[in-house]
């Protein structure tokens, strides 16, 4: 590789915060032409944000831009839209497909860049009435597929394609852009079979030989080691390691990913969930059709009074489990609670069996954003359990008991240290962390026997995180409620839970006690990643 030239890409002191929540701190990175950089890190480590900044994504500018400088070929650039980034020669393949389902591969590869044939009508009505040059389209699509080196049928409709071929169609689209110099692949192998992934790695090597630099984001560490020149590891918004690939091993990467020499750290010493506690929730052969979080054939038993963690990488199906059981997405299988069958696809039945759910989508599902805290805390309890109601005429007329509502809201505001102006404030006006606490208060007010908590600390700051987790533990200890907690952050699961089930490829790949080593968890997480 030519090391004399200036680097193709240089990131200098990149910083980014979302409303005061620091997600990237001082990132410095260099990439030469033809170099393949492997970028890894846990979910939420800031990889995606960094790539979004590089690619000029709209939400970066909308949330106040970023700090630091990006140099492309030694020239300072700042993209305000992806189109500028594309024009400068950056291509990106996203995790979500950006393909038109009813078009064939050729049409998608050349989407909005179709070669056109001039005709006299377009002279009058403008260029958009040029007809498409199908022969030329076919030729260019063929070329870019050849460039990629993976054979896909360029006449196949996207909606009839296997998912791996969709991924390759996207890559071929990027390769068909002549100005392409840097290709960002965001978890491209996640949807590929082993053979396809192998083909992709060959394709990346081919690109590198042709002088195209690649940033390769993946959770499959073996792939990184086999194809990358350099490996960069991010954690909590910091670039913790940037090394030549030959100096790294899977174990060393895993360690810097999960970070902190956390050997054996656990705070559950005082907990006394005995091995033979009765099983309270029995999940048998559960499947859930939640887009992007498909669950396949999950069987799981939860013991009374325990905190069970469900961990795993994003998109592997851990979020599907609580969402499926609670009836928010279509599901099948058997769920038994205390020997009683819980009907699926019926949220009300779950709530009536005194389940509660703190959703990961707190703004969408969790909160009534434009209502007061009182309403948010008391509404489900009122709706489901007839709490906080005064009955008149033998229950014929029910009035809200405003005082009881105010009292209980006030109690939780104190207990959870919710920062607000009072019980009447609207939920929308609170910060993310405080909104999350309101979600918890809402679930607590239901006094459930089984509590599902999904991503309780997503997008909230460190201080609030600790409070939320403490509140969960305390609620579990005091009322003996069984808690199933789903989180992407292994550390937080290890600090909070008794046992942790790891989901990989929609299945449970193993259940370990919280005290097990980080490496063991890491292995499980990557076991059958799809």
């Amino acid at each position: 590789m030519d090391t004399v030239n200036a680097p193709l890409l240089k990131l200098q002191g990149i910083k980014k915060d979302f409303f005061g929540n620091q997600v990237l701190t001082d990132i410095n990175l260099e990439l030469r032409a033809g170099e393949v950089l492997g970028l890894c890190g846990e979910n939420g480590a800031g990889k995606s944000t960094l790539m979004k900044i590089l690619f000029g994504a709209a939400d970066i500018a909308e949330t106040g831009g970023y700090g630091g400088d990006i140099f492309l070929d030694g020239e300072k650039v700042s993209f305000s839209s992806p189109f500028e980034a594309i024009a400068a020669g950056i291509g990106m393949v996203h995790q979500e497909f950006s393909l038109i389902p009813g078009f064939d591969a050729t049409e998608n590869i050349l989407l909005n860049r179709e070669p056109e044939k001039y005709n006299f009508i377009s002279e009058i009505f403008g260029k958009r009435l040029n007809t498409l040059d199908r022969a030329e389209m076919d030729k260019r699509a063929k070329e870019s597929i050849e460039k990629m080196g993976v054979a896909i049928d360029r006449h196949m409709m996207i909606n009839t394609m296997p998912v791996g071929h969709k991924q390759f169609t996207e890559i071929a689209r990027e390769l068909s852009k002549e100005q392409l110099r840097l290709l960002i692949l965001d978890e491209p192998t996640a949807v590929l079979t082993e053979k396809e992934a192998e083909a992709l790695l060959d394709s990346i090597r081919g690109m590198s030989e042709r002088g195209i630099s690649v940033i390769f984001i993946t959770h499959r560490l073996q792939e990184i080691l086999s194809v990358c020149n350099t490996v960069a590891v991010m954690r909590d918004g910091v670039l913790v390691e940037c090394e030549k690939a030959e100096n790294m091993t899977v174990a060393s990467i895993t360690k810097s990913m999960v970070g902190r020499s956390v050997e054996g750290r656990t705070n559950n010493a005082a907990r006394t969930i005995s091995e033979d506690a009765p099983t309270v929730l029995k999940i048998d052969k559960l499947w859930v059709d939640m887009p992007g979080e498909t669950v396949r054939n999950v069987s799981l038993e939860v013991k009374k009074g325990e905190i069970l963690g469900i961990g795993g990488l994003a998109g592997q199906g851990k979020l599907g489990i609580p969402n499926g059981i609670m009836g928010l997405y279509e599901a099948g299988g058997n769920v038994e609670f205390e020997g009683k069958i819980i009907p699926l696809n019926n949220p009300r039945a779950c709530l009536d069996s005194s389940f509660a759910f703190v959703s990961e989508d707190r703004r969408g599902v969790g909160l009534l954003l434009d209502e007061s805290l009182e309403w948010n805390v008391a509404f489900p309890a009122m709706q489901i359990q007839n709490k906080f109601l005064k009955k008149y005429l033998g229950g014929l007329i029910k009035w809200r008991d405003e005082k009881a509502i105010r009292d209980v809201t006030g109690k939780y505001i104190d207990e959870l240290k919710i920062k607000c102006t009072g019980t009447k404030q609207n939920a929308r006006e609170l910060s993310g962390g405080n909104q999350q606490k309101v979600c918890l208060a809402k679930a607590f007010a239901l006094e459930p026997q089984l509590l599902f908590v999904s991503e309780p600390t997503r997008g909230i700051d460190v201080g609030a995180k600790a409070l939320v987790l403490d509140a969960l533990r305390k609620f579990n200890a005091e009322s003996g409620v069984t808690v199933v907690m789903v989180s992407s952050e292994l550390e937080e699961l290890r600090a909070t839970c008794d046992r942790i089930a790891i989901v990989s490829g929609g299945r449970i790949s193993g259940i370990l006690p919280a005290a097990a080593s980080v490496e063991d968890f890491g292995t499980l997480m990557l076991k059958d990643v799809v």
Partner: protein
Amino acid sequence: MNNKKKFDFRQASVPVMFIIICAICIPLSGLSPKMLINEIVTRMGRNSFLILSLLIPIMAGMGLNFGMTLGAMAAEIALILVCDWQIVSVPGMILAAIISVPISVLLGIFCGNILNRAKGREMITSYIMSFFVNGIYQLIVLYLMGKVIPIKHSSIKLPRGYGIRNTVSLLSMRQKLDNMLAINIAGVKIPVLTFIIIAIMCLIIVWFRKTKLGQDMRAVGQDMEVARDAGIEVEKTRIISIVISTVLAGLGMIIYLQNMGNIATYTAHSQIGMFCIAALLVGGASVDKASIGNVFLGVVLFHTMFIVAPRAGAYITGDSMIGEYFRVFVSYAVITVALIMYETNKRKAKSAASMELAAAQDSEDSKKSAD
């Protein structure tokens, strides 16, 4: 490319139902084959162009364009003016077309902009829009014409001195287009020129699908977000599709009215949208998919039903109103059924994914137990 292989019974169910209705009603109606074919050919010439105007918004993913009435109103205004200026026959029609186009374009831009604010609810929005614009149309025709817009001839003016009569005679244009080059085969009059115009329109639509704009519309119709990410101007493309549809509806309305020979000033446009959409759906089209074939099959089936149902009704019940009632009822029913089918198909596709998941799990389990 061979995704058409599978014959879709649900898609075909509506045309099949209509074939059965027609098959029952035709003998009951007592119409001679010659008369029946004559009627059908006349109505094909009259309505096909109008229905063709619906195809492009469907391609752009905007559903059935109930707003085509806007174009029809533009055409009526143009025809009233031309009628007053006493420009007759085909030149009059051409002038009316020239006048209607800018009005249609303006209305189309207006309608397109509003539909862009109501993405996903285009059909109901365009339907309500047609009522709103109908109000403006009435204002123009009932008050402004004769007061602000000069109308000379009292034959089309209301006796009070302004406003247009309920019916405006187009005798000077009546079937002038149809009769040009018309030929007579075994007593069936075939309006060759009208059919040539319709055929040219079909070719233009086929050609349009191959243009960059057509490709963009298909992309926008299937996934707006992906199209936007690829740099296609989604909003503009959608507006253009509505403008084209409105303009074509206007031209189609001129062809329709020259065949009828008079304008029912206050009602001609109001049912046009409904009947055209019903005809297209009867031809086997759906909210998100329609072809030129659907247009012609729809015209033939729907209008056969239109012709024979009143007579068959009269034969069975002795009351011709029953058939009249029946055909209006059926056109609403067809639209309702098509909309429900569209929704259930969407839902079915979703639960099909779930069933696949469950099936995969079962086969996995049985494999395991076999091991």
